[in-house]
């Protein structure tokens, strides 16, 4: 029982990371109906920027803030330069561009920072809490995830910019008619997604260690979480992320062993898409023909 609780708690902690990336995926999906395959690699690259800043002697939270700001800008630039021209192209072209981005970020990180595994500092003090169910970092990371989620919710619910972004995603033409700059809203969506990804990357790096491939598994779990919760529902995606985290840990520990963990993600993704493509909390899409 004790080990089961332990597995569940540490599953919740990693689930928090999946939830952040899932949230970033949902943000881009809502704005553009695309799924950004490069989301994980972008987060990884942001984490390397933070690592470099800290190496240069910058205090943790200053590096954190600077990295988030840089990622926001980076996301906007990528949308403007690479994604915008593909707006009316077939899905295949977008997927190819995303895969291209994934590969570029992965290799550039390896090129600049080498492939050796680096340790990344945790901002949270190393004092044991609640017996030992949670490491302080896991608790801190979960809290940060929840704070980010709350901020995103408040932003979309209560600010006029958030309202404009929701409107632009819902109905481009009407939004344009009331004076919303739809193009910029999409770019901003990319920026926010990149910033959320950066936070997730910095939270996960102390657990999995920093290396160019650290996000490949995490991205899949995040996909699985986003799909499970419903790809068009931010809250659902976050819950889905937590569920996937717990499921992965418990199933990995008791049923199939750690070396098949990624297969859990595969089974979940295919399972959700086949059985209930709208996810647990998503809207059922009906397309007119």
């Amino acid at each position, binding site marked *: 029982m004790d080990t089961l609780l332990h597995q569940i708690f540490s599953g919740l902690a990693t689930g928090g990371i999946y939830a952040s990336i899932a949230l970033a995926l949902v943000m881009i999906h809502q704005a553009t*109906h*695309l*799924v950004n*395959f490069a989301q994980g690699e972008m987060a990884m690259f942001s984490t390397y920027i933070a690592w470099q800043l800290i190496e240069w002697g910058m205090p943790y939270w200053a590096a954190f803030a600077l990295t988030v700001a840089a990622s926001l800008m980076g996301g906007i630039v990528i949308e403007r330069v*690479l994604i915008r*021209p*593909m707006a009316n*192209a*077939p*899905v*295949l*072209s*977008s*997927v*190819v*561009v995303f*895969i*291209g*981005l*994934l*590969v*570029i970020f*992965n*290799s*550039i990180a*390896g*090129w600049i920072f080498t*492939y050796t595994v680096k340790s990344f500092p945790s901002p949270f003090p190393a004092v044991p809490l609640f017996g030992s169910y949670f490491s302080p970092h896991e608790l801190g990371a979960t809290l940060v995830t929840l704070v980010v989620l709350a901020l995103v919710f408040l932003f979309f619910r209560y600010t006029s910019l958030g309202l404009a972004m929701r409107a632009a995603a819902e109905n481009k033409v009407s939004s344009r008619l009331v004076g919303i700059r739809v193009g910029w809203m999409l770019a901003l969506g990319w920026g926010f997604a990149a910033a959320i990804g950066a936070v997730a990357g910095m939270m996960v790096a102390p657990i999995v260690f920093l290396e160019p491939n650290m996000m*490949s*598994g995490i991205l*899949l779990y995040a*996909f*699985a979480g986003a*799909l499970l919760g419903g790809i068009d529902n931010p809250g659902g995606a976050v819950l889905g992320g937590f569920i996937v985290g717990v499921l992965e840990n418990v199933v990995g520990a008791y049923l199939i*062993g750690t*070396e*098949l*963990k*990624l*297969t859990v*993600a*595969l089974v979940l*993704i*295919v399972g959700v*898409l*086949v059985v209930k*493509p709208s996810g647990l909390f998503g809207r059922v899409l009906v397309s007119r*023909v």
Partner: protein
Amino acid sequence: MSVLSPAPRPLALASVAGRPMRAWHWLGLAALIAIAAVLPFGLSNYQCFQLTSALVYAIAIMGLNILTGYNGQISLGHGAFFAIGAYIAAILISKFAVNPWLTIPVAAVVCLGAGFLFGLPALRLEGLYLALATFALAVATPQLLKYKHAEGWTGGVQGIVILDKPEAPFGLPISQDRWLYLVTLAIAVVMLIVARNLTRGRVGRAIVAIRDHPIAAETMGVNSALYKSLTFGVSALYTGIAGALSTITVAYVAPDSFDAFLSIRLLVGVVVGGLASISGAIYGGLFIQFMPNFADQISKAAPWAIYGMVLIAFMFAMPTGVAGFVNATLARLTRRWRG
């Protein structure tokens, strides 16, 4: 979807220097095959081996192109079918002492079945979601191959080492690598001709119609579900054959050579060669085989940086790939020559 349409075929009635265009077409093709067949005798064994790998990739790329280029179903997980083909060949050769060449049809049939079965749930997944599901398949493949309860068959993390490669028969004075190259070339030529006939006939038009307008295709009586799963199967068959061939030429399989990056390389090959083109498979195979050789000298990461940039650059500047570019150039040249 216009960027994906195959280049216009030269009119059969047009003629150059007194011969119909189509005859020139076949003459050129025969000359190319003849050159490819004598090429190994001027190259070292290692260079032959590299060309063989390029041809193997070309077959796999052809398979992916039938699915993605012609049928519009995006697969980022074809490395998995490549792995199935490779492992079937390796297990049959090492455990059952089957003649290496006989493992190819077995791999083909198994992959046809596996592809058909994976194509059934894929029917419910549109574009992006199919890409996602197949991407998950690609990432999970090495883990599945390492699965410890199947270690007796797959060799686990170590993979399977095969002791010897097939020799040229009847005591022909040809080195092993050259013989492998010639057989692979023959298989590749046959597979490309089959793909050409498949995509140009009634079936091919149905496949393309499903890509361009699924509802219209249904209305015209195309059984969309059946064709889509069958296309998935045939595509996996091609890639499985390539996998088996790679086992025969490399004489070694290991789980980590079938990671997600293999699937991405195949996609790079399709995009560079040209979506929905037959000759594109050759250009794509040559590109993914030889580009890393040059780029490796810059940095270990350079090949992948170049792959990524090439993917994006081709999507923006040359969406029909090298094949589209070459065909357009040839068409322009012959028009000038004629007129």
